[in-house]
């Protein structure tokens, strides 16, 4: 199906599906919720005033209630966050506060890496430091009040915005990072007039994305992980990545086969639950990312039997084909990943 036809059909199907539901929301429900939101906000302000008074009282005795509440003891190298001058300056009494969200999965070894607090009118703050070792996850939680928007950029170049006032603390953003990442940096930029607190927590328990290797006899090519993959952790968290290109950032490796030969993929320690292969080519255009484009001129088959994928069926070609292998796999503790992996296959 040509792209335009596919796009037209997609529009048609989505509109039929999206518009098929009756809208049962009433103005009464809106007005009731509006009153509740206002009451919640008023209660929160009252609670914050009370909490601020408590912090002052505890602080006078040498404690810092918020920084230590409920965190799990460090199990990795001690992080040493360093805040920019702006972030260290005198806003030690945030008007909004958060409990560490990493408490929801303490067995992941969460540790507090730092916090950023911003009073009204503070436009920028940055916090950087060391990540727990060996890969893991960075968890960024946000609360704010006032009128404005926070733009948050965290390590791995993830950027998102939080509209203030949030009805409650904004959902936490959790980001996996790989073993070779050592530093984190979180930048917060506020527009409008908002007060905020951003907590940065880390876990040194990684979701290991194992190497996916395409093999034929003694020859092999490690497949690169592309865009659009997702991970899920055994305790219920899942996340999808987003990136500017569909292809891995590193050059693709090549495996050479004779026509009719079969390449295989196994992943030690993981159970592959789904595999689908597509062949195509890389397309490039000025000022645009390189893309994988499926082609009708070639076909490739991936058959999953037991825990081995057999990849076959590619025709001979003057050039190597790009093979996209969409995999879903799970390990013994219930962590999983799903996403496209790429390599060149040259069929002689």
């Amino acid at each position: 199906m040509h792209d335009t036809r596919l796009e037209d059909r997609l529009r048609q199907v989505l509109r039929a599906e999206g518009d098929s539901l009756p809208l049962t929301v009433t103005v009464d429900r809106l007005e009731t919720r509006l009153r509740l939101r206002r009451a919640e906000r008023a209660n929160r302000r009252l609670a914050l005033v009370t909490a601020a008074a408590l912090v002052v009282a505890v602080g006078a005795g040498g404690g810092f209630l918020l920084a230590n509440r409920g965190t799990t003891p460090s199990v990795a190298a001690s992080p040493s966050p360093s805040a920019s001058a702006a972030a260290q300056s005198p806003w030690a009494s945030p008007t909004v506060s958060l409990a560490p969200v990493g408490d929801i999965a303490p067995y992941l070894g969460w540790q507090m890496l730092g916090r950023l607090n911003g009073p009204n009118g503070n436009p920028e703050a940055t916090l950087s430091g060391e990540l727990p070792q060996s890969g893991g996850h960075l968890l960024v939680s946000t609360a704010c009040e006032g009128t404005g928007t926070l733009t948050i950029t965290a390590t791995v170049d993830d950027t998102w915005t939080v509209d203030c006032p949030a009805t409650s603390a904004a959902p936490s953003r959790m980001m996996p990072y790989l073993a070779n990442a050592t530093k984190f940096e979180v930048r917060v930029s506020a527009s409008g007039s908002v007060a905020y607190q951003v907590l940065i927590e880390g876990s040194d328990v990684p979701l290991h994305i194992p190497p996916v290797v395409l093999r034929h006899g003694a020859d092999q090519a490690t497949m690169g992980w592309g865009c659009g993959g997702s991970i899920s952790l055994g305790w219920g968290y899942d996340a999808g990545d987003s990136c500017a290109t569909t292809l891995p950032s590193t050059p693709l490796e090549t495996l050479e086969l004779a026509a009719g030969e079969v390449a295989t993929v196994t992943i030690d320690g993981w159970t592959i639950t789904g595999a689908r292969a597509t062949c195509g080519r890389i397309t490039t255009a000025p000022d645009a990312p390189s893309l994988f484009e499926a082609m009708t001129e070639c076909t490739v088959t991936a058959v999953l039997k037991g825990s081995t994928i057999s990849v076959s069926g590619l025709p001979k070609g003057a050039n190597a084909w790009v093979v996209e292998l969409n995999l879903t796999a799970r390990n013994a503790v219930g962590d999983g990943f799903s996403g496209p992996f790429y390599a060149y296959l040259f069929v002689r």
Partner: protein
Amino acid sequence: MTVEALRRRRPETLDDLLATYGKQIQGVAYLILRDHADAEDVVVETLLTAFERAGDLRDDAAFRPWLMRIATNHALGMRRSRSRVVRLHLVPEAGGHDHGAASTDRVALLDGVADLPIQMRAAVVLRYYADLSVEDVAKALNKSPNTIKAQLQTALNRLRISLADSVGANASEANHA
């Protein structure tokens, strides 16, 4: 309804907002979340956020993309907080209004969209359901237009494969019959 009336928080604007945009916000939220009750919650939170935050909107012409951005943020936030929910695949309705190949490809497309990573799914819904431009989708999701183009291209590739698979399975069933 004018944005100016919304900025002044005139009571009747809630009614107007609901009548004008409620259905579309619900559609966006439903296609992202696949849950009617959650989609209704997104409608409520989106309209109230718009009602309270209209003063932030600088360009009146950008009202609809701004509203869709708020709706998407609420839907994605809700998705994150509902990560334990298991999504059920659609099954074609027997005797429904959409028969045969058209029904198969409808189900394949909807399942294909539901299987996309959440950010990619949101991009597809905003582009092909809400009809936002690539630039507006990029603003709504806080990504560059190039990222959105790449995500949409990847999504279309995957949907094409889903369609091909479903057509293949259908043909195989027909041959058996």
